[in-house]
């Protein structure tokens, strides 16, 4: 692999990543807030009540985005974990670690809102069907990743063990997604991603899409911010981190730090393995 020929690879250097995130995050917060306000307005005031459930169905505007977000973040976690295991890029481990708490939060929210919805509509807040059980396992995988990562005093070792767990656990995501097609569940089948189009009124789909956008952007902002903090804390005494901590990271410092990282990450250089 010709490392230097791939432009985004420069963001494997914590200093370059930090500067990029610093520019992105201030835009992501207001964008997430705007989408959330618009989505909640659509969801509560524009979308009509459902003919069976009345207003109870409106919880899906939180439930569906958080459930999707949990699965998506887990896949990202596994991909970053694999990148860290194979290429030993520290930034991948930093990203994976930054993703885990948000993924756990999203999965927890989807289980919680699902229980709140299930109690009146199904007549039970929890059953051990395949969809619900595999989602609970997803929550445990996120928590297990965080615990395993923190268990070792050596961050490198902890990261490797946790990354392996992340990759093994990735098998669970397709099980969650396809569980409603493979087995009979109490949980209903798909409503939105259907080949014959969503089985929902248009205004409901619009509100749902806005809420999904809000959760995507929120997750992006909070993960980037967390990764920034972690990047700083992993190299606290370096010149770039000292400068960044007081908000004065210059282009020069950034490029020097990126060059140092490139030296550290020998496998990424054009010559390959040492």
């Amino acid at each position: 692999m010709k490392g230097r020929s791939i432009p985004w690879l420069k963001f494997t250097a914590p200093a370059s990543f930090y500067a990029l995130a610093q520019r992105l995050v201030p835009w992501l917060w207001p964008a997430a807030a705007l989408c959330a306000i618009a989505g909640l307005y659509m969801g509560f005031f524009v979308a009509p009540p459902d003919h069976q459930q009345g207003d109870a169905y409106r919880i899906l505007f939180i439930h569906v985005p958080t459930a999707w977000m949990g699965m998506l973040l887990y896949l990202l976690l596994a991909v970053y974990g694999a990148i860290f295991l194979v290429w030993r890029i520290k930034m991948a481990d930093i990203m994976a670690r930054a993703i885990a708490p948000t993924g756990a939060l999203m999965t927890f929210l989807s289980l919680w809102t699902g229980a709140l919805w299930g109690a009146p509509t199904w007549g039970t807040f929890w059953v051990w069907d395949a969809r619900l059980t595999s989602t609970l396992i997803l929550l445990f995988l996120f928590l297990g990743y965080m615990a395993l990562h923190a268990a070792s005093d050596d961050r490198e070792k902890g990261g490797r063990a946790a990354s392996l767990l992340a990759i093994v656990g990735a098998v669970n995501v397709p099980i969650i997604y396809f569980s409603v097609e493979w087995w009979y569940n109490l949980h209903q089948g798909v409503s939105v991603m259907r080949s014959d189009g969503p089985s929902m009124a248009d205004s409901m789909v619009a509100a749902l899409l806005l809420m999904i956008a809000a959760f995507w952007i929120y997750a992006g902002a909070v993960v980037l911010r967390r990764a920034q903090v972690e990047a700083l804390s992993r190299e606290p005494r370096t010149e770039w981190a000292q400068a960044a901590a007081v908000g004065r990271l210059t282009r020069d410092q950034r490029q020097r730090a990126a060059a140092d990282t490139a030296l550290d990450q020998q496998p990424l250089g054009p010559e390959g393995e040492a």
Partner: protein
Amino acid sequence: MKKRHQRLFLVLGVLAGVSVATALVLNAFRDNMTFFITPSEVQAKSEVPDRHFRIGGLVEEGSVERVEDSTKVTFRVTDTESSVPVSFEGILPDLFSEGQGVVVEGRISPEGVFQADNVMARHDAEYMPTAAKEAIEQAEGSAEDIGDY
């Protein structure tokens, strides 16, 4: 072979191995992965299972009978092929109604009536505004005829 290529194959190997193992396990436990069985599957069994289990299907149209001054109710669960009579005493979920999906939990009595100790409603994954539903019922048309909401 470079070291990182070895690691890449190792990671891919782990992923493939875990996937195959999971697929085999899920296949072996197929009968236990399903949350309920259908009335047809109940009929197909030569002997009635003498244990607690779940049947899922639709509440047959016109089959719901409530006993006065009690929370006792009887109805039939159907998958349009065959149906099973169910008797239940307790509070039914909001979504319970004729023609709707339902999962009943309990055991079959010697007379062939399913004695449910728990009734759960199943959502059909269709979301429709109340006004649209009424319009459809009036026109007996399809959802496409009634425009946007």
